């Protein structure tokens, strides 16, 4: 059996189209344009690429993008003051502080200074707790993207056995919450788990988020299972020439694709969904901030 490939690029494009259509409607009926503020501190090249791509996609779906680029030496007080002004700005519905921050800034303090209703990354403690208690919250983008792909592929997830590998705050833990919310039986496996292969073999749904290249092998996968690979690892690719690299996931794609029912590739799987979900969260935040738009 050969797995069907879940095309994250195409699915993300359809999510963006849907967001764009709803933004258009919202503007027409209320005159409100959702706005996303992205704060970038310092010159980290990877972060610059992300921020550019977020800004571009924000504008493409018809929302306002506000970029705040700050020097690496900005003081915590100045950064907090900026966040406070964004919290108070009615044109800004979503605030994203690109992580990681330079070492002299306290990330927890900064993230928790964002108004939870504008915290489109879903990292604020209140959002974590709201998700944990099944209330309206902002859901972190990567696990939300995974859930949307799973729902799109399966319809209902109710009663399925899910194994999440990795217990990070930004992927593993919220992913487990979301799968429980969709009535899966959920096991969270991690570096301390005994017999990881056996645990994974029970699963109808495997979500891998450990950050270890090609760790999960095909013979760990139950035949027909759905495999969502969140990992993005850069490894040496001598076959492409000296010093060349390529991206791989946490799953050994070649062997897993022979066993799984469906699998996300890396790149082109979960990755593109993350920004699409960020845009979707921004629209959600805008609608919640303007209850009269609840139809949108």
């Amino acid at each position, binding site marked *: 059996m050969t797995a069907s490939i879940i095309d994250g690029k195409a699915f993300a494009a359809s999510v963006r189209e849907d967001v764009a259509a709803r933004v258009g409607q919202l503007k027409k009926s209320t005159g409100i344009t959702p706005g996303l503020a992205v704060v970038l501190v310092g010159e980290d090249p990877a972060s610059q690429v992300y921020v550019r791509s977020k800004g571009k996609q924000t504008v493409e779906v018809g929302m306002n993008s506000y970029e705040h680029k700050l020097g690496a030496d900005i003081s915590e007080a100045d950064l907090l003051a900026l966040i406070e002004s964004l919290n108070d700005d009615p044109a800004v519905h979503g605030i994203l502080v690109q992580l990681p921050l330079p070492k002299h800034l306290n990330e927890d303090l900064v993230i928790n200074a964002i108004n939870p209703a504008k915290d489109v990354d879903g990292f604020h403690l209140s959002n974590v707790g709201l998700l944990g208690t099944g209330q309206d919250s902002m859901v972190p983008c990567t696990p939300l993207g995974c859930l949307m792909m799973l729902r799109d592929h399966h319809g209902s997830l109710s009663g399925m056995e899910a194994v999440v590998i990795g217990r990070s705050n930004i992927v593993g833990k919220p992913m487990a*919450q979301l799968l429980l919310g969709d009535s899966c039986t959920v096991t969270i496996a991690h570096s301390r788990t005994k017999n990881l292969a056996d645990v994974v073999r029970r699963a109808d749904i495997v979500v891998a988020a450990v950050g270890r290249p090609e760790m999960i092998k095909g013979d760990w996968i139950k035949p027909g299972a759905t495999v969502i690979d969140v990992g993005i690892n850069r490894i040496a690719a001598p076959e492409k020439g000296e010093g060349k690299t390529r991206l791989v996931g946490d799953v050994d794609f070649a062997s897993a694709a022979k066993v799984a029912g469906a699998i996300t590739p890396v790149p082109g799987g979960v990755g593109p969904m993350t920004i699409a979900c960020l845009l979707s969260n921004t629209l959600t935040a805008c609608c919640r901030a303007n209850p009269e738009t609840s139809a949108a």
Partner: protein
Amino acid sequence: MLRDVTRAAMIDGKAIAARLRAEAANDAARLAEEGWQPRLVSVSVGDTAAADLYVRNQQKSAESAGVAFEARSYPHETSPYQLIGILQGLNADPRVHGIIIQRPLPAHIPVKALQKAVHPLKDVEGMHPASIGNIVYNDLALGPCTAVAAVEIMKTLPLKIEGLDVTIIGHSEIVGKPIAFLLMGLGATVTVCHHMTRSVAVHSRAADAVFVAVGKPGLVTGEMIKPGAALIDIGINRVDGKTVGDADFDSCARVAGWITPVPGGVGPVTVAVLMQNAVLATRMQKEHYQQSFASTNNG
């Protein structure tokens, strides 16, 4: 190492509770000397008969832990806005360090709105979204009392939690899920089952420790337990005038290595954890006050 026995060892919740209360009493006495006598306020609304037993238990436990305890009751027709106002008053009152909202509440009172109105530093029941968020992020501050109690009991057993296979039956927001996150933080491999789980027995039989919190008497039977495993029963049900848990005690006790009785297991530990939270909340408020005062002085 699971226990190899013909009958499970009974976990003595009252003894564990007494130890936790004694620790809390020590801390409370020290705080009182420093001018910070821990004080809890319990808020009941409407017909309080159902909650009276809990309130009395909490009051007794508070007395022995050196925590001041004040029970307030409000009439049934109190509006949610009035109650939120009352909670804001308690939030602002520096003599009050912890607020307990007794359940059940009248149907017209949205319990989650009240829990959100309690200041996170005074949230001794661990129900505020920020408290739950802390638990998920593995920063153990004020946790939901029942969940923390179940984990405290687990810690008294000679089992290494890191790498332990644990099955939790029931995924409620204030018990099942917080237990899952607390144990995951301690390194256990956790599986959460619930009413949509195809076969709970497959998971419970594979587990070194089983936690059950569903509210269905007799849900867990001996053949669902791995011989020698720990069984922590969080259910409290009334059957034929008797209080029983979610486990069929007799059949489970023949298979399990350790088992909590109901009553006398998780229940008393839960009240003791409330006292520990009261002390912890007082200490956090003291530190918060001192930090704010210091920064005002400097600024």
